[in-house]
C-alpha cells in the first residue's frame, strides 16, 4: 500500500508537466510559511533566547550557522540521490533537480563558512581553524562548485545533468570519507551540541529557536529549488503545447 503510493508519487512527480502544476499549487503557501518560520526562528534566537553563560551573545550566530550547514549538507545528499536517479533511470525530473538544487546549496555552504569564521573569532580567537568541520564544509563548497561548473560547460542539457549527476554520486561518497579523514588529521572543534533525537545538551530555550530557524531555512531551500526547477522545466519543455499555452496566457 505504502509502496504503491510511493510508486505513484514517483511517476507523477517524474512527469515535468505534473510537477509544474503541482509546484504552482504548492508555492503560494509554501513561500510564506518558509519566510515566517525562518524569520520567527531568527528573531527568537537573536532577541529572546537567553545568552550563553560562556560565550555571551556571540553564540547567537548558531541560529544562522547551523541551519546553513545542515542545509548545505542535505542539499548535497539530495544532489547525490538525484544523480543516481538521473544516471541509472534517466528520469527527466531528476535531471532538472540536479540543476535546481546546486546553486542554493553552494550559497549555504558559503554562508556556513563565513558565519563559522565570524563565530570563531570571538570564541576561539581566530577567524579560521583547519578543524574537521570547517575543512569538510570548505571541501563541500568545492564540490558544489565542481557540479555547477560541469553543468555550465556542457551544452546539451540532458548530458550536462547526467554528467553532473555522476559527479554528485562520487561526491557523496567522497563527503563521507572526507569527514572521517579530516577528523583523523585533527579535531579542535567543540563536540556536537545538538541532537534531534535523544538527549540533548543544549538548553531548550536555545534549542527551539534553533530548530525553528533550521526548519525555516530548509523550507526556503525547497522554495528556491521549486522556482529554479519550474523555469528549467519550462525551458526544456518549451516546444510542448502546455508550455506554449502557459506563455500565451502570460504565465498564469
Amino acid at each position, binding site marked *: 500500500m505504502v509502496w504503491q503510493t510511493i510508486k505513484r508519487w514517483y511517476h507523477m512527480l517524474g512527469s515535468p508537466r505534473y510537477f509544474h502544476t503541482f509546484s504552482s499549487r504548492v508555492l503560494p503557501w509554501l513561500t510564506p510559511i518558509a519566510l515566517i518560520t525562518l524569520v520567527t526562528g531568527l528573531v527568537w534566537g537573536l532577541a529572546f533566547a537567553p545568552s550563553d553563560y560562556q560565550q555571551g551573545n556571540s553564540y547567537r550566530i548558531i541560529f*544562522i550557522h547551523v541551519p546553513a550547514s545542515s542545509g548545505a549538507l542535505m542539499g548535497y545528499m539530495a544532489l547525490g540521490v538525484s544523480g543516481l536517479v538521473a544516471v541509472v533511470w534517466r528520469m527527466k525530473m531528476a535531471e532538472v533537480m540536479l540543476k535546481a538544487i546546486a546553486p542554493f546549496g553552494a550559497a549555504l555552504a558559503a*554562508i556556513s563558512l563565513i558565519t563559522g569564521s565570524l563565530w570563531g573569532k570571538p570564541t576561539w580567537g581566530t577567524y579560521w581553524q583547519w578543524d574537521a568541520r570547517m575543512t569538510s564544509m570548505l571541501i563541500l563548497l568545492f564540490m558544489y562548485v565542481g557540479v555547477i561548473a560541469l553543468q555550465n560547460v556542457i551544452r546539451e542539457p540532458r548530458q550536462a545533468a547526467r554528467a553532473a549527476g555522476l559527479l554528485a554520486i562520487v561526491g557523496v561518497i567522497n563527503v563521507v570519507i572526507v569527514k572521517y579523514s579530516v577528523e583523523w588529521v585533527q579535531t579542535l572543534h567543540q563536540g556536537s551540541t545538538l541532537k534531534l533525537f535523544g538527549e540533548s545538551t543544549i538548553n531548550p530555550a536555545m534549542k527551539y529557536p534553533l530548530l525553528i530557524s533550521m526548519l525555516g531555512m530548509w523550507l526556503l531551500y525547497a522554495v528556491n529549488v521549486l522556482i529554479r526547477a519550474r523555469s528549467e522545466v519550462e525551458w526544456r519543455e518549451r516546444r510542448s503545447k502546455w508550455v506554449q499555452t502557459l506563455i500565451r496566457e502570460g504565465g498564469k
Partner: protein
Amino acid sequence: MAFESFADFLAMGKHGFFVWTAYGISAVLVIANMVLALRGQGKVRETLARQQRRAEVDE
C-alpha cells in the same frame, strides 16, 4: 526579551560586529540567490514569449 534596551540588542555584549556581520552577509547571499532564481524564471518566460510572438508574426 534577553536584552534591556534596543542599544543593548545592537551591541550583543561586545560581539555586535561579529553577530551582525554574520547575519548581514547571510541575508545578502540568501536574498541574492532568491532574486537570481526568480529572475531566471522571468528570463525564461520572456524568451519564450518573444519566440512565440515571432512565430505568430511569421505565420
